[in-house]
């Protein structure tokens, strides 16, 4: 495998650091994701996994380092809305959906399309949207729930709804933070299946603690520790790595 260069990556982080009140949450982090790749990120609590996503999506500005999307777009100069529009979607660690809207409306709001207040006020609603919504709802197995309020969904269903919203955005890169937290084993297996399906057409970065799930994904794994990369490779390789066992798996 050739080492990743800036130009053939969908996401490229180099020497990124961020400090919160003197605490280095991300420390000289470098990472490259190839187009179409699925990558799992693991690491102990506080390793900086969520903070890394915050940096990529424009929520947190890095103190130093480079973050490039698609090889040429400098993400450190843009805000959340601009980055989302470029094609980076994100699922939060705590499932976050619009509780007072129906499941279908949650998807509708996420659908790729015009985003300005003006078009939202005066734009005509299109019919094609309905079909897209149906397709996405069946992908995330929420078809029977389309008319329910998102607030009434179970925890696992909210996770799926949020993944559905990501699909509706149709981003080039999906960042998925702990998608199976609080799910039953059956739901977890289904989610792994779903993410693999999604990864066929998108680049996906998944943060997860559940090792069985990560193994299920069957992709390259990056281990994060104290804000930088501790190990990288196949699940078997990183599981055998002594440092990884020491700081994470062995606990």
């Amino acid at each position, binding site marked *: 495998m050739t080492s990743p260069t800036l130009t053939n990556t969908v996401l490229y982080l180099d020497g990124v650091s961020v400090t919160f009140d003197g605490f280095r949450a991300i420390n000289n982090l470098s990472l490259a994701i190839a187009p179409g790749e699925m990558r799992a990120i693991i690491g102990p609590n506080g390793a900086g996994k969520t903070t890394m996503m915050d940096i990529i*999506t424009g*929520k947190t500005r890095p103190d130093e380092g480079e973050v490039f999307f698609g090889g040429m777009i400098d993400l450190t100069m843009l*805000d*959340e*809305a601009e980055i*989302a*529009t470029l094609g980076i*979607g*994100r699922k*939060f660690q705590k499932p*976050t*959906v*619009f*509780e*007072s*809207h*129906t499941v*279908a*409306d949650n998807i*509708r*709001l*996420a659908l790729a399309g015009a*985003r*300005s*207040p003006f078009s*939202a*006020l*005066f*734009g*005509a*609603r299109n*019919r094609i949207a309905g079909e897209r919504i149906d397709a996405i709802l069946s992908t995330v197995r929420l078809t029977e*729930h*389309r*008319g*329910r*309020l998102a607030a*009434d969904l179970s925890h696992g269903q909210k996770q799926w709804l949020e993944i559905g*919203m990501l699909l509706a*955005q149709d981003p080039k890169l999906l960042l998925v933070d702990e998608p199976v937290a609080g799910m039953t084993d059956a739901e977890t297996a289904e989610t792994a299946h779903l993410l693999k399906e999604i990864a066929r057409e998108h680049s996906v970065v998944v943060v997860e603690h559940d090792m069985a799930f990560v193994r299920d994904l069957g992709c390259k794994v990056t281990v994060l520790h104290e804000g930088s990369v501790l190990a990288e490779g196949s699940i078997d390789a990183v599981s055998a790595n002594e440092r990884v066992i020491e700081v994470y798996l062995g606990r």
Partner: protein
Amino acid sequence: MTRRPILLAMLDGKGAIFLGVLAALAVLVPLSNLFLPETSPLHVPTYAVSLLGKYLSYALLALALDLVWGYCGILSLGHGAFFALGGYAMGMYLMRQIGPRGVYGHPVLPDFMVFLNWQELPWYWSGFDIFPFAALMVLAVPGLLAFVFGWLAFRSRVTGVYLSIITQAMTFALMLAFFRNDMGLGGNNGLTDFKDILGFSVQAQGTRLALFVATVIALALGYGVARYMVTSTYGKVLVAIRDAESRTRFLGYRVEHYKLVAFTVSAMMAGVAGALYVPQVGIINPSEFSPANSIEAVVWVAVGGRGTLVGAALGAVVVNMAKSWLTGALPELWLFALGALFIVVTLYLPKGIVGTLAEWREKRQATATAKPAGIAAEAAE
């Protein structure tokens, strides 16, 4: 989807009732005032027409507040400022209409300027003798203030209680400014002793009826605008921002733009409300900027039901009727009653009158039909 279902969807049951009540008021109140004998129990005396008009202008203010608070989670504690600015714009027009009929008989200058020995009208008074210009200012001044204020606040992502505090500070600062004589807006006493509006005496029975009807129409239009906004995709995004602001950002929406539109439109509606209020009560002074007024408006919305529009209007009327009655009977009790009302509503009626009624109805329907409520909601879409 075609146009018709959207317009139909805009008007739900409670909206239809609301507009029906407004139409009935616009017709029946003037008829009763003009044609029923004063001895009839159904006769509405002229002073009561103006009192009702005042309540309805408050209802429009409440509606404006509900648009930002109920639908977008922006708890403005400074909406009274937009109301007062609209009121001052109208007051300035009414002052200019006095002409040489003031106590000092100066051909141009209002009495308070003559009293202060001012020689000429300050520049910002020019144009206010022309009604269309004044009407434009009723919208433009509150709108511009809200736009600039909102642009700064929303861009810096000031939210929650911090935003509430700075809106409160805004109205307080304006109150202090308007109290000053050298603002050229009447200082303490504000603007009063109005004579004419559009050539008709503000005291005349016919003018009072016309002002009442104008207020009803403005309230109906305000409702239409607000309802259009909240039922459009725009409104869904507003609610999304209220529920999960950062989620909305990560979907690519510019949250600050959405908030800014709602805040500005809302401020303009509040300005219109103030402009209709002033000729009906006959005075506008700096106490209209007082922070307590803005807080009172929040109580109206909470009582009627946040995020329902109709409830906000209803809350304004109900609370103000109670206020008129109580301040007549036991004036010193009003503030305590208002505080108690707010606590009771927050604890026992968090959805307000209209929200609670709607919830009951939904529950009844849900048990009556075997279908889950969600399917019905989807079908109604």
